[in-house]
């Protein structure tokens, strides 16, 4: 099984289902186990580069940390639970309940991150959109519209340089430092958006001139199918969730 070869829509659905399932979990062990499995699968079946993955994953420790410490301090145990108080800082109490929930929420964030990295790093955007049309019956007009917009993305930075140069060459120049930056942002936001809109309209016209009507009645150069492997992947991920939950309850 290669994650890259799975149907993108199914892959997306699996990730979504996992996220929803995790939202009902408030103990730390389940997300920890699920996280480990997800990471394992990503590297085993996705052949994702370690460095690429880490660069994107590491920032989530910050959020996770935020969750852990704030929940630990501010959490409000329901009245019918018993808890142990570890320490008291003025009005705040650190309890085992708070710490547990904090860890659970923090790990949940990491889990979400790992799941979505598993998806992003193994999925081709064009194929994903095509699969949304073919499997999820997304209207082609919308899907191709988004795809057309998506291709501007790499151009956005160039666009910024262009606008900057246009101003510079006309003798406009900004002060250095924060003040200059804000001035610059104010001056450039509208031109940048305007040029994006202009490009968008032109692309729409180009699409129509190539005979695009938005009708579903069309053939596909890339045909995407759902196979047994996709089902297997779905069952695997749900199965892992059930096992993680089970293990954490029995311990």
């Amino acid at each position, binding site marked *: 099984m290669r994650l890259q070869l799975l149907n993108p829509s199914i892959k997306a659905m699996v990730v979504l289902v996992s996220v929803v399932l995790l939202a009902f979990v408030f103990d730390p062990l389940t997300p920890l186990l699920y996280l480990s499995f997800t990471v394992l699968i990503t590297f085993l079946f996705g052949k994702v580069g370690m460095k690429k993955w880490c660069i994107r994953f590491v920032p989530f420790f910050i959020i996770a940390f935020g969750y852990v410490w704030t929940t630990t301090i501010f959490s409000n145990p329901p009245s019918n639970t018993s808890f142990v108080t570890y320490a008291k800082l003025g009005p705040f109490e650190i309890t085992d309940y708070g710490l547990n929930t904090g860890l659970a929420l923090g790990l949940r964030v990491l889990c979400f991150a790992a799941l979505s990295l598993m998806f992003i790093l193994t999925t081709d955007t064009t194929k994903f959109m095509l699969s949304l049309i073919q499997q999820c019956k997304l209207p082609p007009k919308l899907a191709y519209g988004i795809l057309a917009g*998506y*291709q501007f993305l790499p151009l956005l930075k160039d666009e910024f340089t262009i606008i900057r140069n246009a101003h510079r*060459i006309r*003798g406009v120049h900004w002060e250095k430092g924060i003040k200059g930056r804000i001035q610059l942002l104010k001056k450039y936001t509208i031109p940048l958006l305007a040029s994006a809109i*202009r490009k968008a309209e032109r692309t729409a016209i180009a*699409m*129509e001139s190539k005979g*695009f009507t938005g009708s579903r009645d069309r053939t596909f*150069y890339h045909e995407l199918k759902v196979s047994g492997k996709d089902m297997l992947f779905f069952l695997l991920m749900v199965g892992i969730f059930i096992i993680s939950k089970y293990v954490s309850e029995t311990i």
Partner: protein
Amino acid sequence: MIEMEIREPLLEVRNLSLSYEEQSIINNISFSINKGEKLLLLGPSGSGKSSLALCLNGLIPNSIEGDRTGSIKYAGKEIQSYKPGQLSSRIGVVFQDPDSQFCMLTVEDEIAFGLENIKLPKEEMIRKIEWSLSLVGLEKYRQAHISTLSGGMKQKLALACVMAMEPELMILDEPTALLDPVATKDFAETIDRLQREMNFSLIVIEHKLDYWVPFIDRTLVFTQSGQLMYDGSLKKGLVHHFDNMKDLGIYLPKVTGFGQQVKENFYPLTMDELMEELNEINLSPPIQTMNVFSSTPLIQMKHVSFSRGEKQILKNIHLSIKKGEWTAIVGPNGAGKSTLTLMLAGLLKEQQGEIFYGNKLFKDLDEKVRLDSIGYVFQNPEHQFIADTVFDEVAFGPRMKKIEDIDSKVANILSDFRLLRLKDHNPFILSQGQKRRLSVATMLVDEREFLILDEPTFGQDEKATNEMMKMIQSRVNFGMTALMVTHDMEIVAEFAHQVIVLVEGEVVFQGTPYELFIENSEIVEKANLENPLLYSIWNTYGIRGEPIAASVIKS
């Protein structure tokens, strides 16, 4: 009479008029085109040629707003009565602006997109994609991302997309404006060959018509106000309407213009025709050098290199430009000309080497001083625009400098560039040629010591080209230094003091036009250039061993 009834035209335009927001653009025109016929559409910049193309395939008024009246019949049926998308597979258009005709990420997906729309089965698509890419020589780029292609390659891809759908009518809107001379020639020849194989009808809109002349059947001429002035063979048009056409300011074949200067009522269309008559006529040699008043260098580059990622774009550049000199930079598409000029304008930082301005290093120069003394006209005119109306665009520089009498100064230059009527328009809705003129005007109004222009004349008619060159010349006469990138060898020969030839990021020649075109023909060839007409004639003379006389006929 009977014959005409049997042969129904493929496309029939009757009393077509078009206006944008109450402003009339196309005025009551009628013409038709038969299957397999090849039409050339001429007209001054802004006369509504591109707008006509948009009407013909139904984009106006379906996708672009405009009030259209009259009738356009395609294969006997009004075009409005075709279902959406039906016409697009039968009428293919290659648009004027190479950057606004794609909607997918990669080359193959882009071609496939059109084919999917006409519901071609997958196997067929694969075959068509391969075939159309091989037509334009882009086989190797099948999986490439479109954003990494150069302007010329994008133009070719646009052609491949349209060809793959095998249209019955093909409309090309200035497809070669940005191509170097050899690529232009190749493009025209490719179209000619394909047309023979597939027998589609063809409408070519073009200012520089020389390469299309040999295989065009009919020529239509538009006036400035969007009326049809002439419909018939080019030769006949020239014989009967030469002066009218000249007055419109459109380009006519170079050889015809030359022929007119040597003999009355002589309208040659090919070099051979011209040379035959020139046999007995005395011809002056091209000018060898032009005077430059100063000898102090204004700007110098030493050991300058530049790379983007792995790719080295400029290699160890040395060059020097004197004060008051007019320099042309020429070379094939993708040679690095724009990159080089951006660096000279201080908009791109050199990675290695040094640039001197006067006797100071570029990086030691105060940013404000540098920006105030060097002007730059971008290759893509839209990159220049920062204001919301044509007037404000030109007035921007003068307002910053708070000089007097801004309104009349701006109005003057706008009228010189035939833009005054459009002064309240948004720069982005102008025609391609108008955009180009506006971008040049913004810099000419702002008097700078050193002006760099990246292809200032592309997409221009003859009148605009001359006007622009004269304006630059008058400023050069007053001491301005000018540097221009161009693919037009005629203006190089006529105006430039020196030429720099750039090939694959290296300066392979720096000298006078005379030295380049007479003494270095191998460089002309290597750099995808062509000889200016006068030099070609001169060279042909040399080969024939004709006597060279010294009387001057060059105007």
